[in-house]
């Protein structure tokens, strides 16, 4: 454990050095996410000019929802995105071989090696938006913020585990672009409050494909009366998914070592 922490801080340092090397790239990546945040904000602000509620959420609540979305997404971008995005490329180039020859857990190496340090800027922006949106709420309970300490990690675990499983298919299939497209669509489902969906889809998003864990559940903990059973379920199942991703990786590796040339 201690070794992994030390290793992780070495990864962080190396990533920061590498990111600072490309100043233009550093800034564009922050800009990209600002555009993306704006897109989400513009969509909802515009629609709320013509209606009061969407899926039972008011505009103030929706702003909090977006704040949580920005924060979770920024964490994901910092911690995992660069790794999982490049996974199929690395497998194709045979870099996986060199990784597997290292005395470190290969899932850890593949998922955590490269941090997107530029995205720390986005985390700050996202957090500011969240704080501002919370300050606009008339009856916000500050103590509810503690829920985020467990629910945001649980949301992150869901994004990570699902994306990792999708990316791992690169080991089995040589081409996995279409699966990646499928993943982005799934992720998009999580970018809207769960209550806008038809009942069967909502149930699906709270169970087998828990995209609602990513933003909806943490946002609910800030906005509504806490639903302890739901939160417990989210924590339990997000850890479960992490384990599933581990099993899937073991399966993929078995496939790799018996099929690759």
């Amino acid at each position, binding site marked *: 454990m201690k070794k992994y922490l030390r290793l992780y801080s070495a990864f962080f340092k190396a990533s920061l050095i590498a990111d600072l090397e*490309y100043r233009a*790239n550093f800034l564009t990546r922050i800009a990209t996410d600002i*555009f993306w945040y*704006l897109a989400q904000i513009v969509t909802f602000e515009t629609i709320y000019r013509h209606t*009061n509620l969407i899926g039972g959420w008011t505009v103030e609540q929706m702003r909090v929802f977006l704040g949580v979305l920005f924060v979770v997404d920024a964490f994901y971008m910092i911690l995992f995105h660069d790794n999982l995005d490049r996974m199929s490329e690395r497998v194709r180039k045979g870099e996986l071989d060199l990784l597997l020859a290292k005395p470190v857990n290969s899932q850890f190496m593949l998922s955590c090696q490269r941090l997107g340090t530029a995205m720390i800027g986005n985390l700050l922006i996202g957090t500011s938006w969240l704080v501002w949106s919370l300050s606009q709420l008339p009856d916000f309970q500050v103590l509810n913020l503690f829920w985020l300490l467990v629910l945001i990690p649980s949301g992150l675990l869901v994004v990570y585990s699902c994306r990792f499983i999708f990316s791992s298919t690169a080991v089995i299939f040589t081409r996995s672009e279409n699966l990646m497209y499928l993943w982005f669509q799934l992720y998009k489902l999580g970018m809207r409050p769960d209550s806008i969906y038809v009942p069967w889809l909502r149930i699906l998003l709270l169970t087998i494909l828990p995209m609602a864990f990513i933003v909806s559940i943490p946002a609910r903990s800030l906005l509504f009366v806490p639903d302890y059973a739901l939160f417990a379920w989210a924590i339990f199942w997000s850890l479960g998914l992490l384990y599933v991703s581990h099993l899937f990786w073991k399966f993929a590796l078995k496939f790799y070592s018996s099929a690759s040339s």
Partner: protein
Amino acid sequence: MCTALIEVTLWMAVFAAAKTELIGGFPKESYLAYAIWAAFMARISVSWMYEFRMIEEIDSGSINHLLVRPFTFFEYYLSQMMGYKLVTTLFSLIVPFAVSTAFDLPTDATKLPIVLLLVFYYLILVHILSLIVASIAFHLNRVHSMTVAKNLGLWLLSGELVPLDLIPSPYKETLLALPFCNAVYIPVGYITGRLGIEQVYAGFASITWSILIFGALSVVMWRWGIRKYVGTGA
């Protein structure tokens, strides 16, 4: 197509909670048709693959073989992209067409030809922007992220997210004055009955002046890049 379905769900939820039958003067069906066609238009009117290839080519230095060909770099990739877009348009057209027919959503198929002409005209502008981004690759490494940023920016201005007429003034007027609404809002608005033909004509005009402006910029950027490229001989 999934994107369109998520947008459709959003509009259904909006109308479910709304007290009125109309939003911005249009009924639910109009928005559903808009969401479905917008997803389709947005995919046609954006260039990822060819822009990446242009950057890659400049980055890796394999551009040399293009420089000696009679086709210029710009025309070579423009013709490739147009060909590709034409084929994908014809095939993917079936989906929004089938969906809007099946659910009886407001769509006027006779308006499609002129709208597609508009979008393909807009693609020339898109390609000029690609050339500008690619020219930056002469000076910097890793320009790919600029493509991402630029395309996201254009997406924001295109009207895929919401019909631009819902946006309050003066933002609405600004967005309509820019050429980028020709990617989604103008064509989709016209075939789903939000807009009249005069706005399509205005679209052709705004694309034309933008091509002139950005075209001039791209020439400057390209020459600057080539000068550096030849200069270092890398």
